C-alpha cells in the first residue's frame, strides 16, 4: 500500500539541506540583468519618454518598449486585456513601461533612475462603487468586468417563511501572497535557436502559449521550464517575469536574468480581491435557514486577471456548505486604478466564508441555538441540492467533519474572560468553475528499467510530486526506486493545467491513474507481475512507441447558466470544519489564536503527512487574513509595514482527516490546498465574538480595529 502512507515528501531532504536551485538562485554565464521601469501614476497618459540618458549610462545594453514587441502586447489567463508594457497610457501604480537590460543588476537598477517620463494625469477610479457609473473608462467596453447571479427557489417566499432575519455587511482587504521567493527567472536561446524561459511558476504550458503570442513564434519554438519554486498561492499564475525574459532574449540574443525585489513584488504582484459583501439570512425558529440573499462588489484593479473567476466562485460558494432552499446572489466585479487583483488561494471563497460563517453564528445567537447545532442542521448531505441546484451524490463529508469536531466543541470551557471559541465551515469546488480543465500525464519505460512519469503539473511546495508518485506506485505496485519523475518542462510533458484551484491531486492524479491503468495492462501482458523485469520488457520491445502510455482526466462539469448559475460547475467538492480558541488582550486589542481543531474531507488521504502540512499552512495564512494582513496601496511596500504571522502567532493544531471517497478521483481523492485556509478566518472572528461580545465585520481584525470595537461596546 502506497496510498495513505506517511511517506516523507520526495523533495523534503533536498529542500531541508538547501540543495535545490530555485529560480532566484539561477545564474547563466554572460547573462544580462533585466529590470522593469514602472509607472508611478495610477491613471495617466504617457506624453513623452526619454530613456536616452539611461541608455547612455554605463553597462546598459538595451531598453525595450512595447514597440519592440513582435507579436501581441496583450495577455490574460481568461480575458486578454493586460498589456505587457504600457503603450500610451498607464492604469495603475507599478504598471510596467520599459525593460532595461544591463550588464549587471546594479547598472540596470541605476539606469531606471535616469529615465524621464512625462505623464498627463486622468481621473483616477479608486473605488469599485464609483467605477460602474464613471464616465472615465478604464477599458473601452466599460468598467464592469463581470456580473454573475445565483438564483434558486423563491427568495421573497423564503424570507416570508423566516422567523428571524440577520443582515450585515462584511468587507475584506487586499492581501499579498508574500511567497518566500519573489518573481524570478532566466531566459536564454538554446542551441536550436529556440527561446527558453526558466522561472518560478505555477503553470508552464499557459506561459508557453502566452510567450508564443507575444513573440509571434510557434509554441514549439518556445520552451518553458519550472525552476524549483518558492511558493505561489496563485501569485505565479499570471505572466510575471516570463514575458519580459522572452522578449529580452528575443532582442538581446543572449541569456537574461530577472529577479524582482521584495518591494517590486509587493508593488506589482496581483493581490487577493477586496470584497464588499451585503449578506441577508432568513431562518426559522428551529434553525432551518429558509433564504440567503447576497450582494458582492469586487475590485479587480485595471486588468481582469482572475477577476471573473473570483466573481463567479464567490457567488457560487456564497451560501457555504449548507442546503438553502431559496438563494439570490448578485456578484459584480469592477475595474479600478487600484492594484491588479488576481488569484489567491481560494478565489474569493475565504472572503465569503468569513461572511457566511459570521451569519451562521449571528442567526444562532438570535435563535438561542448552539452554533454547532445550526450548522449540522443545515449542512449539505448526500442528495442535497447546492445553491446552483447541483445534486450531490457522492463524497459529501461536511457532517462527518462536524462530527469529528463535536466532542471538542461540547466539552469546551472558557479558561478566563479573555478566551473564546468559534466554528468555521466551508465547502469548495475542486478544479476550475464550469469549464473543461483537463490534465495529461504520460508514462514511459526507460532503458534502465524504470517507469518515467511525465507531467506538466507544477510542484510549488504543495506536494504534488509526492502525491502523483504515490498514485503511480499504488496503481502499478512499484517501489519509489522504480519510478522517475520527469516534470516541469514543456518539452517533456503535455499540459496538466495550472497548480491552482486545489486541482492537481484530483485532476493530474486522475490523469496519472488513467495512464497507469494502461501501463499496468501492458506490464501485465508482458509478464511483469509474473516476475519479468522492466528492463527485460524494455529490451524485448522492438517498437519503443508501445512503451508509452498516455493518461487524461477532465472532471465532468457543466457550464453554469449565465442568468441563474444553475448547473454542476464542479465534479466534486471538499468540505471542512475548523474550531478555534482565541485569547483576547482587552487592553491592547491583540488576539492570540491558541488552538485549532481542523477536520477536512479530502475524499481519500493519499499522504496524511502532507495533508496535515497543508492544514497547518492554511491555518497560518488564515491567522494572517483574520488578524493582520492588509495591503494598503501607496502605503504597504515591504515586510516593514505588511505584517504577516510568524511562528510565534501560530496556534497548536490538531488535524483530522475525513475520507468520504470521491468515485471520480484517483483512489477516491479530492483536493485540499485552498480548503485548508478557507474556514480559518471565519472561525477566529466567531471566537473573538465569543470571547468579547464584539464582532468584526471588517478584515483584518487587527489590534486597532479590535480595540476600537471593544471601546464602542463599553459605551
Amino acid at each position, binding site marked *: 500500500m502506497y496510498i495513505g502512507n506517511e511517506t516523507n515528501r520526495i523533495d523534503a531532504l533536498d529542500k531541508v539541506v538547501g540543495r535545490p536551485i530555485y529560480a532566484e538562485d539561477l545564474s547563466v554565464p554572460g547573462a544580462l540583468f533585466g529590470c522593469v521601469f514602472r509607472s508611478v501614476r495610477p491613471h495617466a497618459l504617457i506624453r513623452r519618454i526619454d530613456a536616452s540618458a539611461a541608455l547612455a549610462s554605463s553597462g546598459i545594453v538595451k531598453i525595450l518598449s512595447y514597440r519592440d514587441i513582435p507579436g501581441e502586447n496583450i495577455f490574460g489567463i481568461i480575458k486578454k486585456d493586460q498589456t505587457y508594457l504600457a503603450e500610451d497610457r498607464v492604469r495603475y501604480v507599478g504598471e510596467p513601461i520599459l525593460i532595461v537590460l544591463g550588464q549587471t*543588476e*546594479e547598472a540596470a*537598477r541605476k539606469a531606471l533612475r535616469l529615465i524621464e517620463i512625462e505623464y498627463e494625469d486622468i481621473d483616477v477610479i479608486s473605488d469599485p462603487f464609483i467605477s460602474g457609473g464613471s464616465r472615465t473608462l478604464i477599458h473601452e467596453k466599460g468598467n464592469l468586468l463581470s456580473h454573475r447571479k445565483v438564483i434558486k427557489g423563491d427568495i421573497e417566499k423564503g424570507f416570508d417563511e423566516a422567523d428571524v432575519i440577520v443582515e450585515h455587511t462584511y468587507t475584506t482587504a487586499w492581501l499579498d501572497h508574500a511567497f518566500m521567493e519573489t518573481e524570478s527567472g532566466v531566459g536564454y536561446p538554446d542551441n536550436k535557436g529556440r527561446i527558453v524561459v526558466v522561472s518560478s511558476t505555477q503553470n508552464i504550458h499557459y506561459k508557453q502559449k502566452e510567450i508564443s503570442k507575444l513573440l509571434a513564434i510557434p509554441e514549439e519554438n518556445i520552451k518553458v521550464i519550472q525552476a524549483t519554486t518558492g511558493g505561489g498561492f496563485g501569485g505565479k499564475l499570471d505572466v510575471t517575469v516570463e514575458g519580459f525574459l522572452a522578449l529580452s532574449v528575443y532582442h538581446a540574443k543572449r541569456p537574461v536574468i530577472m529577479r524582482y525585489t521584495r518591494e517590486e513584488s509587493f508593488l506589482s504582484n496581483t493581490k487577493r480581491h477586496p470584497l464588499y459583501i451585503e449578506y441577508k439570512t432568513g431562518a426559522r425558529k428551529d434553525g432551518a435557514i429558509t433564504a440567503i440573499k447576497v450582494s458582492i462588489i469586487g475590485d479587480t484593479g485595471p486588468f481582469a486577471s482572475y477577476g471573473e473567476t473570483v466573481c463567479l466562485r464567490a457567488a457560487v460558494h456564497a451560501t457555504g456548505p449548507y442546503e438553502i432552499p431559496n438563494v439570490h446572489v448578485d456578484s459584480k466585479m469592477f475595474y479600478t486604478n487600484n492594484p491588479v487583483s488576481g488569484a489567491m488561494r481560494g478565489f474569493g471563497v475565504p472572503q465569503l466564508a468569513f461572511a457566511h460563517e459570521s451569519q451562521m453564528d449571528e442567526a444562532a445567537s438570535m435563535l438561542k441555538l448552539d452554533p454547532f447545532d445550526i450548522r449540522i442542521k443545515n449542512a449539505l448531505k448526500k442528495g442535497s441540492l447546492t445553491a446552483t441546484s447541483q445534486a450531490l451524490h457522492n463524497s459529501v463529508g461536511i457532517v462527518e467533519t462536524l462530527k469529528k469536531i463535536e466532542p471538542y466543541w461540547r466539552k469546551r470551557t472558557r479558561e478566563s474572560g479573555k478566551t473564546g471559541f468559534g466554528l468555521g465551515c466551508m465547502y469548495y469546488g475542486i478544479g476550475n468553475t464550469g469549464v473543461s480543465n483537463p490534465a495529461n500525464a504520460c508514462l514511459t519505460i526507460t532503458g534502465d528499467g524504470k517507469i518515467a512519469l511525465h507531467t506538466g503539473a507544477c510542484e510549488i511546495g504543495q506536494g504534488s510530486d509526492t502525491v502523483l508518485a504515490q498514485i503511480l506506485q499504488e496503481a502499478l505496485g512499484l517501489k519509489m526506486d522504480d519510478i522517475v519523475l520527469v516534470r516541469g518542462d514543456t518539452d517533456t510533458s503535455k499540459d496538466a493545467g495550472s497548480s491552482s484551484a486545489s486541482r492537481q491531486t484530483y485532476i493530474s492524479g486522475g490523469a496519472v491513474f488513467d495512464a497507469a491503468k494502461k501501463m499496468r495492462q501492458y506490464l501485465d501482458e508482458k509478464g511483469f507481475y509474473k516476475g519479468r523485469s522492466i528492463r527485460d520488457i524494455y529490451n524485448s520491445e522492438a517498437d519503443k512507441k508501445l512503451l508509452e502510455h498516455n493518461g487524461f482526466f477532465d472532471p465532468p462539469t457543466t457550464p453554469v447558466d449565465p442568468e441563474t448559475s444553475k448547473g454542476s460547475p464542479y465534479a466534486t467538492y471538499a468540505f471542512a470544519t475548523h474550531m478555534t480558541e482565541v485569547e483576547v488582550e*482587552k*487592553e*491592547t*486589542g*491583540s488576539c*492570540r489564536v491558541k488552538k485549532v481543531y481542523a477536520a477536512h474531507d479530502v475524499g481519500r488521504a493519499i499522504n496524511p503527512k502532507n495533508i496535515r502540512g497543508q492544514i497547518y499552512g492554511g491555518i497560518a495564512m488564515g491567522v494572517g487574513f483574520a*488578524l*493582520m494582513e492588509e495591503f494598503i496601496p501607496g502605503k504597504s511596500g515591504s515586510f516593514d509595514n505588511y*505584517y*504577516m*504571522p*510568524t511562528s*510565534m*502567532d501560530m496556534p497548536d493544531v490538531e488535524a483530522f482527516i475525513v475520507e468520504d471517497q470521491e468515485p471520480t478521483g484517483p483512489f477516491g481523492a479530492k483536493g485540499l490546498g485552498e480548503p485548508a485556509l478557507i474556514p480559518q478566518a471565519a472561525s477566529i472572528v466567531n471566537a473573538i465574538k465569543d470571547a468579547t461580545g464584539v464582532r468584526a465585520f471588517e478584515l483584518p481584525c*487587527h*489590534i*486597532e480595529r479590535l*480595540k*476600537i470595537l471593544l*471601546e464602542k461596546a463599553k459605551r
Partner: protein
Amino acid sequence: MLPDFASVNPETKREALAFLDSLDDARVIAGGTDLLVDMKRGESCGNVVDIMNVKELKRLSVNDGKIIIGSTVTHAAISKTVILNDMAQSLSVACGWVGSPQIRNMGTIGGNLVNASPAADSIPPLLIHDAILSIESKDGMREEALEDFIIAPYETSLRPRELLASVCIKGLPGYREGYRRAAKRAAWAISRLSVAWAISEDDDHFVDVRLAIGSCTPMPFRPRDVEEFLKGREKNDPVIREAVEIVAEEIRRISGDRPSFVYKMPVVKDLVQKALRG
C-alpha cells in the same frame, strides 16, 4: 544593494575615538540593524566605524546599585542577564521584545538609543531608571541624561566625532516594575504603544510612581504631572481614574489630537490603569 563604503574595525575605545576624529563622513555601526537597512535604502556614508570588537564597550557591570551597560551590549544579552532581571526588570523585558532573535543578537542598546526611534523598546524603561549616558570623543567625556539626549524623533544631541560609550542606570529596589506593549503580532513587530513603570507603594498609598510611555508622542516621555500627582496619594479607584486622565492630558499637551489616538488613547489609559493597580 549596499552602496560602496570603507570600514574600520577598532579594538579599543581609544582607537575608535581616533578613527571618529580623523575620518570624515563617518558613521558608527553598533550591530547595524538600523544603519544597514538605511544604507540599503540608499543612505550613503563614506566610512563606517565598526565598534563591535571594542571590549570596553561590551561590558555590563554592577557596582553599588549602579548598573553600567556598555553601548554594544546586545538586546539578547540584556534580556538574559539575571542581575538586570532583578534590578531593572522593565528593561530586560523590553529588550526581549525587540525584533526577532536575529535582531536581538545583533542590535545593541547604544544603537537603539542613537537611532532614537519613538518606538524604541529600550527607551521607556531607561527613562524610568533616570538613565545617564556617557558620551566620549577624542577631546574628552561628557554625561547627559537620556531625557535630554533625544531631541527629536530620530535625532540626538550626539555630535560628529562623538561616541556613545555607556548607559548608567540605578536599580530601584523595593519597586515593582514592568513593561507592556501593543504590537500587530506576537513577535518581530514594532511597538504601537508601550508603557514602562516602576512603582513603590506601601499598604494603601503610592510612595513613588515612575511611568514612561513610548510610541505615542514624538519621543518616549515621562508624564511628570501624574508622577507628581500620585506621590503619597491613597491607592484607590478614584485616584487611579484621575491619574489616567492626567496622563491623557499630558499626551494631548505634547502632540495635540492625532488620528492614531482613537486607538492609542484607550490603550494608554488601560495599560496605565493596569500598571497602577498592579
